C-alpha cells in the first residue's frame, strides 16, 4: 500500500500516517468530550438548586472532571488533530517523524489516564486550577506534565512538517491562511505549554514535599498556562472559521495582509492574558494590571475584531460570487443554513463575538473585574467563548473531517443538520443566564448558594432562582445538542456508509461533501463591478459593515453599563 492516498474530493495527496494520527487524536478527543459531558450533566443538575443532585464532595469532584476533560483533554486532543490536518493534509506533505508522532500521542494518553485516575478516585479534588496550597495526589501533577510534554512534541512535529513541506516544495507560494493561523496557534501553544512546565514541575515537587511554591506566584504562572491555552483555542478557532468558510461557500480572503497581521497580534500579545485572573489579587500593582490585562493596549482584542470582520466579509463575497447579490443581506438569506458546517460557523462567530468577546473584554477591565471576579459571570463568559465559539467550530469542522479523512458519510444527516441549532441555542441561553445570575453576585464553583448549613444565610432575590432555572434549561438543551454530536460522529465513524471514490469529485453533491470545493463560486471576471473595485481589490462588503457596526454598538453599551454599575458601589481602593 502506498504511503499516500489521493483525496478524490480535493485532489490533495494525503499521507496515511497523517490520516491515522488525525483519527486517533480525534477519537480520544471525542471520548474526553463524552466524559466531560457526563460530568456537565451532574454539575448542572447540582447547581440547579431545585434539584441539587450531588453531595458537596462529589460536586467538586465532578466539576474538576468537567474542567479537565473539556478544557484540557477534549480541546487539546482535537487541536493536535487540527495541527496535523492544517500542515500535512493542506500542504500535500508527508509526516516526517511518524514514530515521534505516536510516542507523543501515547504520552498524552498516559498523562490523561493518570489525571483521570486521581480525579475519579477522589485524590485530586482541587478543581481545574489546582491552586497551591490545595493539594492533589502527585500523579495528578505528573499526569499533566506528561500530557504537556506530549502536546509540546506534537507542536514541534507540526513545525517540522511545515519545514519539510517548504523544503520539498510541496506547495507553491506562501502558506495558506488556515495553515498560517494554525502556525500561530502552535506558537502560542509552545509558549503556553512552557508555562505549564514551569509551574507544574515545581508543583509536582511541592506535592512530594521537596520544595515550597508561593500561592501568588503559582496563580501568576499557572494562568500563563490556563488563560493562554484559551488563546490557542481562539487562534485555532479562527483558523477553522476561515477553513469552514472555504469549505462551505468558498469564502474568499479579502486581504492576506490584514488577516495575517491579526494572527501575529495574537502571538505577540495574547500571553499577557494571565492578568485577567489577577486583577483583584494582592500580588500585583495597578500599572502591571492595566498594561497586561489590556494585552498591550488591546492589540489582541483588535485582532479578534478584525477576524470578526474578515470572516463574515469573506463569506459575503463568496456568496455574492455565487450570485446572491440582492440588497445588504441577500447573501445571508441564501447561505446554506442546512449545512451543519455553515450553521456552526455562523453561530460560532456570533456567540463568540457578541456574548463571549464583549463580556470578556468588559470583565477583563481592571476595575470592572471587582464586580465580576469569581462570580457566575466568569463561567458565563467562557462558556460563550470556548464552548459556543471553539467547541462549536470544532463540531462544525467534524462534519467535513468525517467524509474527507475518515471517508465515511455522515450518519443521521437530518439530525446533524439541526445539531448546531440545538447546541447554539442551548449554549446561548445557558451562558447569558449564567452571566446575568453573576451580576447578582452568585459565586461560581459553589455547591449550595442556599447556604443551608452555613453560619449565616445570605438570601438571593427570588429572581436569581428563576435565572438559575433558565440557565439549567439552556444547559440541558446544549447537552442534548452535544449528545447528538457524539452519537452522529461515533455512528458515522464506525458504522457510516463508506464514501464511494467516484461520487465525491468536482460537481458532486453527496452529503457531507464541502460545496465550497466541489461546487466553487464561479471564476471572477474583470467586469464584476459588484465584488471587484476598479483597483482590482475585492470588495465592498456592505452587509458585513452593517453587522459589525451593530456589534460595536452592543459592545459600547454593555461596557459602559458595567462602569455605571461599578460606580454605585462603596468607594474602595
Amino acid at each position: 500500500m502506498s504511503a499516500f492516498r489521493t483525496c478524490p474530493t480535493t485532489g490533495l495527496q494525503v499521507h496515511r500516517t497523517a490520516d491515522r494520527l488525525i483519527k486517533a487524536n480525534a477519537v480520544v478527543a471525542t471520548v474526553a468530550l463524552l466524559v466531560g459531558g457526563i460530568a456537565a450533566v451532574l454539575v448542572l443538575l447540582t447547581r440547579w438548586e431545585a434539584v441539587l443532585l450531588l453531595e458537596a464532595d462529589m460536586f467538586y469532584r465532578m466539576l474538576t472532571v468537567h474542567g479537565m476533560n473539556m478544557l484540557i483533554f477534549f480541546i487539546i486532543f482535537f487541536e493536535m488533530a487540527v495541527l496535523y490536518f492544517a500542515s500535512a493534509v493542506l500542504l500535500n506533505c508527508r509526516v516526517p517523524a511518524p514514530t515521534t508522532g505516536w510516542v507523543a500521542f501515547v504520552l498524552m494518553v498516559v498523562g490523561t489516564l493518570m489525571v483521570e485516575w486521581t480525579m475519579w478516585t477522589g485524590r485530586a479534588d482541587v478543581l481545574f486550577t489546582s491552586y497551591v496550597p490545595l493539594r492533589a495526589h502527585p500523579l495528578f501533577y505528573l499526569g499533566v506534565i506528561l500530557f504537556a510534554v506530549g502536546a509540546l512534541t506534537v507542536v514541534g512535529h507540526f513545525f517540522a512538517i511545515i519545514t519539510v513541506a517548504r523544503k520539498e516544495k510541496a506547495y507553491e507560494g506562501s502558506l495558506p491562511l488556515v495553515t498560517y493561523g494554525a502556525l500561530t496557534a502552535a506558537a502560542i501553544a509552545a509558549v503556553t505549554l512552557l508555562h505549564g512546565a514551569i509551574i507544574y514541575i515545581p508543583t509536582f515537587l511541592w506535592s512530594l514535599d521537596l520544595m515550597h511554591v508561593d500561592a501568588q506566584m503559582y496563580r501568576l504562572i499557572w494562568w500563563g498556562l490556563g488563560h493562554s491555552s484559551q488563546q490557542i483555542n481562539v487562534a485555532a478557532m479562527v483558523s477553522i472559521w476561515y477553513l469552514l468558510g472555504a469549505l462551505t461557500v468558498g469564502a474568499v480572503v479579502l486581504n492576506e495582509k490584514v488577516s495575517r497581521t491579526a494572527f501575529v497580534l495574537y502571538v505577540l500579545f495574547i500571553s499577557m492574558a494571565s492578568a485577567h485572573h489577577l486583577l483583584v489579587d494582592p500580588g500585583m500593582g495597578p500599572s502591571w494590571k492595566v498594561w497586561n490585562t489590556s494585552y498591550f493596549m488591546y492589540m489582541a482584542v483588535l485582532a479578534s475584531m478584525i477576524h470578526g470582520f474578515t470572516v463574515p466579509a469573506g463569506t459575503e463575497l463568496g456568496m455574492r460570487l455565487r450570485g446572491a447579490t440582492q440588497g445588504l443581506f441577500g447573501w445571508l438569506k441564501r447561505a446554506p443554513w442546512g449545512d451543519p458546517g455553515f450553521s456552526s460557523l455562523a453561530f460560532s462567530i456570533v456567540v463568540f463575538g457578541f456574548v463571549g468577546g464583549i463580556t470578556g473584554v468588559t470583565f477583563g477591565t481592571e476595575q470592572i473585574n471587582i464586580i465580576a471576579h469569581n462570580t457566575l459571570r466568569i463561567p458565563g463568559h467562557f462558556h460563550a467563548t470556548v464552548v459556543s465559539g471553539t467547541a462549536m467550530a470544532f463540531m462544525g469542522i467534524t462534519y467535513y473531517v468525517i467524509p474527507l479523512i475518515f471517508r465515511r458519510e455522515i450518519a443521521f444527516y437530518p439530525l446533524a443538520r439541526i445539531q448546531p441549532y440545538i447546541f447554539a441555542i442551548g449554549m446561548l441561553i445557558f451562558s447569558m443566564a449564567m452571566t446575568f445570575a453573576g451580576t447578582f453576585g452568585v459565586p461560581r464553583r459553589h455547591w449550595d448558594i442556599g447556604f443551608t448549613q452555613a453560619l449565616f444565610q445570605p438570601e438571593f432575590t427570588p429572581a436569581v432562582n428563576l435565572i438559575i432555572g433558565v440557565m439549567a434549561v439552556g444547559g440541558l438543551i446544549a447537552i442534548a445538542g452535544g449528545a447528538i454530536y457524539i452519537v452522529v460522529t461515533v455512528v458515522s465513524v464506525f458504522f457510516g456508509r463508506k464514501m464511494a471514490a467516484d461520487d465525491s469529485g468536482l460537481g458532486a453533491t453527496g452529503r457531507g461533501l464541502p460545496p465550497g470545493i466541489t461546487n466553487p463560486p464561479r471564476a471572477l471576471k474583470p467586469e464584476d463591478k459588484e465584488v471587484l473595485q476598479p483597483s482590482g481589490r475585492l470588495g465592498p462588503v456592505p452587509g458585513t459593515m452593517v453587522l459589525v457596526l451593530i456589534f460595536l454598538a452592543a459592545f459600547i453599551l454593555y461596557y459602559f453599563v458595567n462602569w455605571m454599575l461599578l460606580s454605585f458601589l462603596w468607594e474602595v481602593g
Partner: protein
Amino acid sequence: MYRTGIEPPERVWWKKVERHEKVWVWIAFAWCMVLFAMMPVWHLRGGQNPSGIRHRVDPADFQARVAEFVQEYQVGTDNGLPVVAPPPGSHVYLQASQFAWIPVVRLRQGAEYTLHLSSLDVNHGFALYPLNINFQVVPGYDYGLRIVPNEPGEFHVMCNEFCGIGHHLMVGKIIVEPADAAAEAVDAPAAGVSTAGGDR
C-alpha cells in the same frame, strides 16, 4: 484572482486594503484606545479601584494581628464569632481560613476604613453580598483596601474561591450602621451588648 483560506497565495501578499476593511480596522483601533484609556481615567476620577496597600505577610503574624484587633475592639459575639466595632479611620483585619471569616465587623456608614484581607491556609475569595464586591484572598499576602461604606445594612461575606469541601459553609458578616445611629451608639457605649470573650 481570488482565493480561499486553504489555497496558498503568491509569495508576496502585502497588498493594499479595500475601503470597508480599512475603515473597520481604524474604528476597531479607536475603540481599543478608548478601552485602554478608561482604566487610567478611572484611577484618577473613579471611586472603585483594586489598588490597595499590598505586601507579604506571614500567616502566623496575620493571625496574631487579627487576634490583637479583636481584643482591642470586640463588642460582642454572633453565632460564636467575635463582633468587632473599630472606630472610623482605623485598620480592619479580616481573616480567611477553612471555612470561616473572622471576625464579624461593625462599621459606620460614610466613614473610611482600611480593610486588610489575608488567608491562613489556601486561596479564598472575598465576595461582599449583596453588593457584589469581589477580591482574591491569597495566603502570604496582605491586601489592604480603603473602603467607605455608603449605605447601612447587614452584608454577608461569601467565599467565592474554591477552598475545600466545606467551601459553601464559609460565610461571614459585615454590619454597617447608619451614620446618625452610630453617633448615638457612641454616646451610650456597649449598652446591651454582650461582652463575652471571643473564640481566642
